[in-house]
Structure formats: C-alpha cells, structure tokens
C-alpha cells in the first residue's frame, strides 16, 4: 500500500532533474547540426513588398535563406484550427489562411517571414538581421474594440468585420424572461486579461531529414507528440506519418502553449529536407513572447438575476474573444465548449444564455492556456456571485450555499452533466481551514498596522477529460479525445507501460507506476513509464485539460484489466486452481490460505517461454487498450484568499490562501498538491501581476521579463491545500483530474478579496499596485494618505 494509490510516493523522475541530467530538446545535438533563425515582422499589419536575401546569403556560415514562397511551392500546407464552430446562423467559422512563413501579408509583430539556416546560432542570427524585407504598412487592429469597430482594417479577406464566428449556447428567450422577472439583477462588465504562458523552457525543435530513408525525425517541446505528427502529416504535408517520428523528450512545462504545432517546427522539418542538415531552433524568451500562443483575452457583459430569496433565476453572458492574427489549433473550442458550458458554475441555474463573438486582431494567436475557458467562466460566475451578494446585502458564502447543485447527476442548461460532488462540503471545509469566522478580528488587527485586509471566496467547477469522442465530434472536434496505453510484462516480470499521455512536470512516471504497482502487487521500481516518442508508443492524444489522470490512467487500467485476465489464466493453469481464486500481492500470484503461489516473474517467464500455457493461448504478456471516456469529469472546489493591501502604494499581498478541492480519487497526494500550488500561483499571477499588453500599433509592450510580471516566490504565500473528494462516477478509478484547478479558482478569489478590502468593486485584472491605489482613491474609503 505504501507505494500504491493514495501514497505520497517521492517522484521517480526527480533524480535526473536534480542532478542536471534531464534531457530537454535544446540539450540534443545532432551530427551535422545547423541552426535556424527567423526573420520576423516588426509590423503588426503590413504587405510584404519584397524580400532581399542576397546579402544574408553571402554572409559567413549561411547555408540557406528560405521564404514562404518556397514553402508554398513545396506543397507545405497552411496551419489549421482543428475544431469547427458554426455561428448562430449556421454559417461555418471564418478561418483565414496561415502560412508557416508569411506570404503577401504579415498580421502580427513576430509573424515569421523567412528563415536563415547557418552553421552557428550567432551566424544565423546575424544573417537574419541582414535579410531586407520591404513592407508597406497597413492600419492595425490590436484589440477587440479596434477589430470590431466600424471601418476596422480587414485582417483576413474571408473574415468580414474580423468576425470569426458569432456563436451561442442555451435558451435566450427563457433567460431574458427570467431576468425580466427577477427581483434583483446584477450586471457587470468583466475583462479577462491576456496572458503569456511562459513555460520556463522556451520552445525548441531539432529536425533531421534522412534522405536515404526519406524519413524525418523531430525532437520537439511538445505536450502531444502524436498529435503533432498527425497534424504535420495530414494537414501540413510535411511527411506521411510512417516517415515522420516525433520525440518530445523532457519538456520544461507546457501549460497549453506546447499543445500546438507552430510554424517553427514545420519550417525546421522542411528546412532539414531542403538543406540536408539537422536544423535546430530554440526560442529566446523574447521570441517566446512574440510567438507562443497567448491565453484568455475576453471582454464580457454578464447579467445574473435572482428571486427575492436569493435564488438564481437566469444568467446571460455576452463575450467577445480575441483570437489574435490566426486561428491556432484549438482556439475555437476555448471560448465556446470550454467556456460557455461551465457557466452554470456550481449552481442550479434554470436559464442560461451565452453569446460568443470571436474576432481576429493583429496580435499573437490566442489559444488554450492552463484552464482554457474554464478560468474565464469561473471568473465571470464567481465575480457575479460575490457582487450580487454584496448588492443584496447577503453573506457571499450563504448566497452560494443557497444556490449549490445538490443532487447528482445534474444536467446543466449548458450541455454539461455533473456526475458527482458535495459542493457545500468543500465550502465548509475551506471556510473552516481559513477560519472564515475569525476574519473580522484579523481585519481589525491589520487596520492597526495600517493595512486593508479583505477576504474573497470562489467556488469553481471545471470539466476535464474532454470526451466522449463521438460527442465532441458532433460538436466540431477534428480528433477523437480518447487515450491509449500498452502494458508490457517482460519475461523477468518487470513492466513497461506505454502511454500517450506526455509528462512535462506532472509526475506521470511516478503516479502511473503507482496505479500499476498496486494493481499487480509489484514494486514501483519494477515499472517503467514510456511516453513521448511516436516510434515507441503507438498513438496518444497527449497531455492537456487535466486529462492524464481521468483519461490516460483509465486507458492504463483498461490495459491492466486485459493483462490481469491473462495472468490469472496462466497462473491458474500452472497452479491448477480457479482463476478467480487468485490474488496478486507481494510480487506473487497466489491462492490465499494455501501454499499455491507463483512469483510474479514466474508468470512472466511462463508467458514468454510458452512451454506450458493453457490450450490455444498465445505466448507473451502484453496488452493494449484505448479508453474513450463516457463523460467529462468535474473537479470542483472552494478557494478562499485573504489579502492585505498597503494603502500608500496599493500593493496587495496575498497573506492566506486556502483551497479545498474535490478531485475524486487521488493517486499521489503530494503530486496533486503540487499541481494545485502551481495553479494557484498562476492564478494569483493573473489576478495581480500578469498581462500581455499591446499598444494601439500592435507593438507588444510587455514582451520580456522586464515588463511581464512573472509571479516570484515573494508574490505568493505558502498555501493550505485540503481535499474533500467524491468519487468520479464515470471512470474506472474515480479520478477527476487536478492540473488546472488552481489556475481556475484563484483569480476570482483574489479579486473578490481585493474588492472586499478596498470597498470598490471596479477593478480589473491584473490588479496592479497602481490600479489598486487608484481604486482606493476613487472609493474614498481607504487610508490613501499616510
């Protein structure tokens, strides 16, 4: 049990990382390796008049300068968005062309125009600066407001008014009727700030073309190497799947930004074929800001109606979503099926209507970032609930309590069917852990020290393990969202588990092994998790959306089921007993209470020697499975933040943060808590510090760590993380997933705490010191002067 499900086992993968032996993409060096440097647009919107590369071509070390025209001539396809969303009127979304190297027009600062391949990184960089691109600048729309204004510049010719789609979900008439009859309506304008994901490892690619085999190998910082191969093959025509191997070795964080297949990987593969050299590219951080898909960037008007008893009667949400200059791989699904579907929150809401208008702007493409749609939904719902409670003079906790969903399964008005939970139980646990009742005393004590103290709550819910495949297919998804696994028991009894879930910090090598160790009663050290290589693992959908637990592990369990059946048959045959009598523990397969027992390794050996197997049984002990979930899972929780604000400077310190989560069954609480810590820090970052800012001309203003505020150790407190778990009803182990929760529930908790502290509800994220100070002054309630 000490190594099995529920045990806080130390991570198996740590040793290589703490000794500096991790192997990340930029650590790979191929024989005959050359380096790529991209020529990027300095303009947010411009026609490309010409590209003069002769000076660059003549420079030291330069192997080739390649442009979009050559890329197109070679039949490399445009980048695509893989989820088709239709507008209210039934028309398909307006997807503009995105070439890996721009031809004709550039549409954001950083848009790649050409690439230089050279012997060294410095030579490539120097030559890239020497490529002369002449531009004719065009008017720019760098924000949602600018893109949707009358007479706005047209970014893609097939997207009139820059509109990608105008979509809706829910019952508009019923919702308007409910709001019209409501005793109280709370109405708010809410902005969800644009974020840069900032995995600490910058993106990198090393591509090698083997002309003898007509075969490509790509090392890539990918969360999902199989999806990368699929897309590179099926849509971008780089190479057919059997001629392309994608390896995602150790990957230094992803948070969504490494799901997508970017122009750089396509270009490196293509350039390796053109130059017959291995081609490496590693982003500088500045380049990461310019090219990694950003997250969030919504503006929303929301109205929530209540009856005289404080019960929600209707909820109307109108959101405009910024997609940037091109539609990234999953972009279309984020503000629709990952957002609008979560607007019932943890509450029983009889009428909901959501409209989403998605638009192009002259900015970096926007796509899923930790939480993806669900943080935006949680922020809208929980800001509305808190504000409504204050407006109606009710306790915010009690207003939530009065509206919680209490019976399961619960069908929301926005597609989702919640399978399980005890929402009030989590709230109670969080309130107790946070000493909610003692807040007034802490506030008074803080006031004595000249600080404004506030408390804020958020009860988030999210949906993980997007599925089932048939359902998402009917909603427009271009892929299935199952996961695969293969469990190989070796002749000596050691076990290799091949999984399509990629681990880039989540600790799969430990947690997945714990599941198998418990299942077969074998030591953790005898199990190896294999992932991240399309030549080793047959297929997989990768890691995002907190799906590795509920979906990835479920596939492993399913493969283990098949292995177990065979183990029982072999052991029963050898021990001359009934297969159902056998138990697997202590590295043995045995009949309890008897001396009938085989070592686990003896079963493995028997399977492979095949000297004495049951009649008609194939040799070997290896099973694979594909698991397609029957429903999403619904992790939820209650977060409580307490802040103290320095009225002189407006600086906010998060002094206490309590989380009570329901993640269903937990495999490794140490790792799960680590996921929550990281998510909360990202959410606190969104609430207080982080924003990707563009000026009106489309120039990024916060494009480095000099101006984009990453949360540091001093910006967050130690966290209190508790669990009140209910088993997920729809997968074999009852797992709900935990990867995104922290980032989903924390922004509204922090903003609710700040607005409580300063007595001014009008504050947008990030609540920088300057904004909070101004809000204190505007409210006149603070101690703004010292």
């Amino acid at each position, binding site marked *: 049990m000490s190594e099995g499900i529920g045990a806080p086992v*130390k*991570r198996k*993968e*740590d*040793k*290589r*990382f*703490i*000794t*500096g*032996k*991790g*192997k*990340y993409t*930029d*650590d790979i*060096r191929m024989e005959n390796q050359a380096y790529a440097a991209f020529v990027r647009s300095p303009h947010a919107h411009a026609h490309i008049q010409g590209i003069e590369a002769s000076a660059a071509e003549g420079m030291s070390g330069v192997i080739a300068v390649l442009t979009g025209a050559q890329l197109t001539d070679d039949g490399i396809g445009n980048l695509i968005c893989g989820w088709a969303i239709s507008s209210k009127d039934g028309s398909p979304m307006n997807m503009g062309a995105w070439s890996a190297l721009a031809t004709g027009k550039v549409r954001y600062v950083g848009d790649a125009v050409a690439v230089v391949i050279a012997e060294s990184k*410095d030579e490539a960089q120097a030559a890239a600066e020497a490529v002369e691109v002449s531009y004719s600048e065009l008017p720019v729309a760098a924000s949602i407001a600018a893109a949707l204004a009358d007479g706005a510049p047209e970014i893609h010719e097939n997207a009139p008014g820059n509109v990608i789609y105008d979509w809706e979900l829910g019952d508009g008439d019923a919702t308007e009727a409910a709001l019209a009859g409501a005793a109280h309506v709370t109405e708010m304008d809410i902005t969800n700030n644009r974020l840069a994901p*900032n*995995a*600490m*490892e*910058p993106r990198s690619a090393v591509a090698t073309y083997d002309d003898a085999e007509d075969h490509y190998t790509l090392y890539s910082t990918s969360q999902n190497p199989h999806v990368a191969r699929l897309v590179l093959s099926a849509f971008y025509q780089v190479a057919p799947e059997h001629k392309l191997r994608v390896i995602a070795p*150790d*990957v*230094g*964080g992803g*948070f969504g930004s490494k799901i997508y297949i970017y122009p750089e990987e396509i270009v490196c593969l293509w350039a390796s074929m053109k130059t017959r050299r291995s081609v490496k590219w590693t982003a*500088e*951080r*500045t380049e990461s800001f310019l090219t990694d898909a950003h997250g969030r960037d919504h503006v929303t008007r929301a109205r929530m109606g209540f009856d005289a008893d404080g019960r929600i009667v209707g909820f109307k949400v109108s959101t405009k979503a910024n997609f940037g200059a091109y539609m990234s791989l999953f972009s279309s699904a984020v503000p629709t099926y990952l957002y609008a579907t979560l607007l019932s929150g943890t509450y029983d809401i009889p009428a909901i209507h959501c409209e989403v208008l998605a638009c192009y702007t002259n900015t970096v493409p926007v796509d899923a970032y930790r939480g993806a749609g669900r943080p935006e939904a949680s922020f809208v719902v929980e800001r509305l609930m808190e504000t409504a409670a204050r407006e109606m003079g009710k306790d915010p906790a009690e207003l939530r309590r009065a509206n919680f969903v209490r019976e399961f399964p619960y069908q929301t008005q926005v597609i989702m069917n919640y399978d399980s939970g005890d929402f009030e139980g989590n709230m109670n646990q969080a309130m107790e852990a946070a000493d909610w009742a003692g807040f007034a005393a802490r506030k008074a004590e803080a006031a004595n020290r000249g600080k404004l103290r506030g408390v804020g709550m958020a009860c988030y819910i999210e949906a993980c393990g997007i599925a089932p495949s048939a359902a998402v297919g009917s909603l427009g998804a271009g892929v299935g969202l199952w996961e695969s696994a293969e469990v190989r028991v070796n002749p000596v009894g050691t076990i290799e588990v091949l999984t399509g879930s990629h681990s*880039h*910090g*989540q*600790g799969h090598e430990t947690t997945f092994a714990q599941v198998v160790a418990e299942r077969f009663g074998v030591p953790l050290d005898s199990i190896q998790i294999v992932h991240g290589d399309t030549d080793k693992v047959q297929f997989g959908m990768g890691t995002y959306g907190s799906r590795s637990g509920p979906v990835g592990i479920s596939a492993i369990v399913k493969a283990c089921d098949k292995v177990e059946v065979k183990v029982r048959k072999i052991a029963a045959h050898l021990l001359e007993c009934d297969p159902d009598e056998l138990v697997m523990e202590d590295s043995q397969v045995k009949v309890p209470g008897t001396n009938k027992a085989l070592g686990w390794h003896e079963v493995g050996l028997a399977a492979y020697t095949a000297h004495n197997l049951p009649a008609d049984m194939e040799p070997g002990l290896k099973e694979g499975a594909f698991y397609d979930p029957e429903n999403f899972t619904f992790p939820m929780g209650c977060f409580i933040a307490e802040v103290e604000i320095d009225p002189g400077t407006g600086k906010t310190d998060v002094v206490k943060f309590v989380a009570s989560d329901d993640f269903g069954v937990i495999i490794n609480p*140490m*790792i799960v*808590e*680590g*996921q929550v*810590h*990281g*998510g*909360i*820090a*990202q959410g606190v970052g969104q609430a207080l510090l982080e924003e990707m800012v563009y000026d009106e001309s489309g120039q990024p203003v916060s494009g*480095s*760590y*000099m101006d984009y505020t*990453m*949360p*540091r*150790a*001093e910006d*967050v407190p*130690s*966290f209190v993380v508790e669990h009140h778990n209910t088993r997920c009803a729809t997968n074999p182990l009852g797992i709900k997933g935990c990867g995104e929760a*922290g980032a989903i529930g924390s922004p509204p908790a922090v903003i609710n705490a700040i607005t409580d502290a300063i007595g001014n509800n009008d504050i947008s994220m990030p609540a920088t010191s300057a904004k909070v100070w101004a809000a204190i002054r505007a409210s006149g309630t603070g101690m703004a002067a010292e």
Partner: protein
Amino acid sequence: MTIVSMTVNGTAASADVEDRTLLVDYIREHLRLTGTHVGCDTSQCGTCVVHVDGKAVKSCTMLAAAAEGAEVTTIEGVANGELHPMQRAFNDNHGLQCGFCTPGMIMSGIDMVNRYKAAGRELDEAAIRHELEGNICRCTGYHNIVKSIAQAASEM
C-alpha cells in the same frame, strides 16, 4: 577566438571560443554540461545559475572569458558521491515538477544557505522567498521549493 581555461566541477577545462561566448554557452555547448539552462534573455529567470569561485552568478550574464582561471561549479558538480542535501531536499519535498528551473534553484539554494550560515543569520521562510528573487519557477508555485530549501538549510 581565445583559449579560455577554468576548473569546472573540479576538472580542468579549456576551449578555444569566440570572445562573445557566454559562460552558459561555454558550459552547455563546449563542455556539454546541459544541466545549466537558459530561460530568458534579460537575466531574470535564474535557470542558468552556477557558482563561480563559490558565489552564485547568472552564467547567461557573464562572458566565458571573464571566468578565466575561475573555479566553476554547475549542477552536475554538486553531488559528491551521494546527492547534496539540497538535491535530496528537492526530491523529499516535491520541490520540482518539469525540472527546468531546478538546477538554478538548487544552485541558488546552496548559495543562500552558505551565505546565511557564514553570516550567522536565520534563513526563515520570508528570507528564502526574498532570496529567490532571481529565480522564476512556473510549475510549483514555490511552496515546495521553499520547503526544500528550508529542509536543506537545517541539514547543511
């Protein structure tokens, strides 16, 4: 080009490099010690921290030539047969997730403990958080990094 010689992890190292070569590139590309990372270009993230003559520095913000004759320790050099207490503490406390910032965190952690011990100052949670100003982690929320360094400080 200049021949730059130094002692890295106790072993003499020498390479003929361009003058513009950063210490981190000398370590990663010439010595192929790839545990030292590059995570930003503005000297803030701290994934590149190594010790030069016993002090933590950002190897991305120092020329290799400036380390001529120096004693350099990288993450690969801190274990002495067995894991350094700081390395073990990161494993014990789940102080790492993706592992990319970890070498810099460990090198900064060792440096801060050494400095505080030398000065006879207490390295409490607030001090650890303040001392980590030059190291950014996106995965852990710092909670377990702080715990790891506190544990190692009690063992070093």
